[in-house]
């Protein structure tokens, strides 16, 4: 089940302040968006995956993400392989579609798609987009799961994010497991009323999940009102004018991470501009 978790492993990364981690997420996002090279994107996605595993994000979680996202990734790659012509041509400076390397052509006799073809260029651009998406999906748990929620709030507030928004963010993470538990107990109750999910096709299952929405939303609404009453009774007003039990101070390791990612950004931009490294169809 996909839900919020805090890694149990104590590591260099889990001891860092949340702010350099946010900075890291921002830099990696910029670079990932800027690069168009499938090879570099693969390297980036693999590095982030390994980093997640190294800091203690559970393989089961990553595997679930991969399983859930695989149909989407496949669709992405195939769509680019078959239909992305203009963009890949422009990126590589081709003047004619004849310059594209064909992989497969549908027989002319086939209705509608007959004569359509997939290209290596489109496929490699699709792979670039797929790895880009994977990196962006995994970089968030890398930062969020390695930070205790309260440290996250303090870090966000120190990063000048309004306290109310930081609190809503942390409450969402806090209540995710409760909602998932509720979802599981509703499905269980339906099975105990003779519902046989294992015998159902995908459309019937979607109908079942739709029925779960009513008690789930109702339960969430009741819980959110209860939470609001609890917060009010604890003098919560959302005002940033408050004190904090824990301090958020940047240490040398935090500064080192910020410096590292600043240099990484500069280097990535330099290599792209001067040597076209990272560009689609570039040397790497």
């Amino acid at each position, binding site marked *: 089940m996909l839900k919020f978790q805090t890694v149990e492993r104590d590591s260099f990364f889990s001891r860092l302040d949340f702010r350099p981690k946010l900075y890291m997420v921002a830099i990696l996002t910029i670079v990932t968006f800027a690069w168009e090279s499938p090879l570099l994107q693969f390297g980036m996605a693999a590095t982030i995956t390994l980093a997640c595993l190294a800091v203690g994000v559970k393989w089961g979680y990553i595997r679930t993400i991969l399983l859930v996202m695989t149909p989407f990734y496949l669709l992405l790659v195939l769509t680019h392989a078959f239909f992305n012509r203009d963009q890949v041509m422009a990126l590589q400076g081709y003047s004619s579609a004849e310059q594209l390397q064909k992989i497969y052509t549908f027989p002319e006799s086939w209705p509608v798609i007959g004569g359509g073809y997939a290209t290596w260029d489109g496929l490699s651009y699709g792979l670039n987009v797929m790895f880009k998406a994977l990196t962006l999906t995994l970089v968030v748990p890398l930062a969020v799961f390695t930070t205790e929620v309260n440290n996250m709030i303090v870090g966000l507030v120190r990063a000048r994010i309004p306290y109310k928004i930081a609190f809503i963010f942390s409450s969402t993470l806090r209540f995710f497991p409760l909602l998932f538990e509720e979802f599981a107990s509703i499905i269980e109750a339906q099975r105990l009323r003779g519902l046989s999910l294992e015998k159902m096709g995908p459309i019937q299952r979607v109908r079942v999940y739709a029925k779960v929405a009513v008690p789930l939303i109702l339960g969430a609404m009741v819980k959110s009102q*209860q939470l609001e009453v609890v917060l009010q009774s604890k003098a919560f007003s959302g005002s940033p004018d408050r004190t904090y039990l824990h301090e958020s101070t940047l240490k040398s390791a935090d500064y080192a991470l910020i410096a590292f990612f600043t240099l990484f950004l500069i280097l990535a931009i330099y290599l792209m501009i001067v040597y076209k490294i990272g560009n689609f169809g570039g040397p790497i």
Partner: protein
Amino acid sequence: MPKPIAIFEDVSYQYPRSEKFVLFDINLEIRQGEFLGLIGPTGAGKTTLCLALNGIVPQFYGGRFFGSVRVGDLDTVEHPISEMARLVGQVFEDPETQLIATSVENEIAFPLENLKIPRQVIRERVPQALSAVRLEGTERKHPHELSGGQKQRLAIAAALAVQPRLLILDEPTSQLDPVGAEEVFATVHELNRVLGMTILMASHSAEEMAQFADRIVWLAHGEIVALGAPDEIYSEIELLIKNDLRPPQVASAFFHLRKSGIAVPKIPVRLPDAIPMLADLARREPNPDFDLPAPNKVTGDPLLSVKDLTYIYPDGTKALQGVSLDIREGEYLLIIGQNGAGKSTLVKHFLNLLQPTAGVVKVRGADTTEMSVSELAHRIGYVAQNPDNQIFNSSVRAEIEFALENLDFDPEEVEARTNESLETLGLVDVQDRHPLSLPRGVRARVVIGAILAMRPDIIIFDEPTTGQDYRGAQYIMDISRDLHQAGKTIIVITHHLYLMPEYAQRVIVMGKGTLLLDQDIRTAFHAREALRSTFLSAPQAVHLTQELRRSNENFPPLLTPEEIADYLTPRRMAS
């Protein structure tokens, strides 16, 4: 007389979009240092009264508010809730929803941070508050790692850290097992007696309220019915029952004695007061016609059979260890034990929601692991604690038909069974209403009706009375009795042991994943050691009987106030 710390003057309140006043003409003083108990059936206005003390009513909810509530020198309408939070600490019913931080120390620090208390002071107050509720050493733990009782004590610590003048607890023990409830009452009692903290506690636990409260305020339909010492309030047995409230069992026993003609000068409401009074009566000649009902032995082939069942959760927790038992057709079985004793884990094996690590569970001789959950639903109905998680349809009728349609019955059969269920549960008049628009007690009936339509042989009630008042709880148990009398096998899991003598025949006591005792209810409720080993306590009437048996070994092991009165009533009066 101590100075009042909070004053209600002519307070009436109506929620927005509500036709009725939920509080009406309330005049009440809460005195400095007292433990004021707040009682009343569901819907009496107890929670609203509590929320009026920190201004959440009406400031948060809106609506029409008349009169005034003052805490200390502050009017709760004129001062913001955040300012009132300095004076009034509040603990709510649900231990899950009210804990909002991800560590114990942050939970306690949260209101202090909001009140801009300096960091150094917060650091001093966190250990102080934890020590007051005996939770030292848990600072770094996640609140989820704590037991139910510990969670409520943490909520109390978070309220205490603010150093409020008034601590309000709204049904803080209703979702806890007996040991958790005992922890909370002991903590609150200590805070009141040792630290002089003023307490307002709403609770249905009559025995504990009689023992700990200095005064009781009794609310019904938003109005104060009575205000006085527990001895005055809890001795009004007929009035309490008429208002859907449960008196302490000792008071009930003396009420029945008085009703049978024995001169009872005063109805005691606490166990220590009742023992000497009853000991005097017990010296007289008891009712010679009194016979202990013989335990009801059910014979025949087992309907459900568990053999050497062991279950280990994926994280390594051993939840069940070599459990063996047979349940026969037509039995009414009660499963008890503290939270974590393995009760629900055992029952989930009956339904194939969990599969044994070792051992086997059979229904009518068939291994449950070889049947799907939906197939088993035909034979075993399961009523879970929260009816709202079991309601998915837009009308009562559709809700009852839901299971039948899943089980592929033909339309005539669906209609016949639905009509039968609606009639049995008294739901014909509301069959077109949305289930969620009905009161909680009726919603529970809808869920039972939906399960009944599948005509299962066994019906399991898992904590069916949690969050219900006395009348609501009794109503559900009465349904279970009717179903039992109609030939169903009933299994109930509950912490409300005082309800069960009227219904259950056989009791399974579980502790640490093992079966500690399997006996008829009379033997089980008097098995003090077995109950204590799983942190359970028998109902007060059983305690009273046990005290009398200490000095008179011929005194029979009685279970209920009615039995005590019946046994002690001489023949002349009994006739």
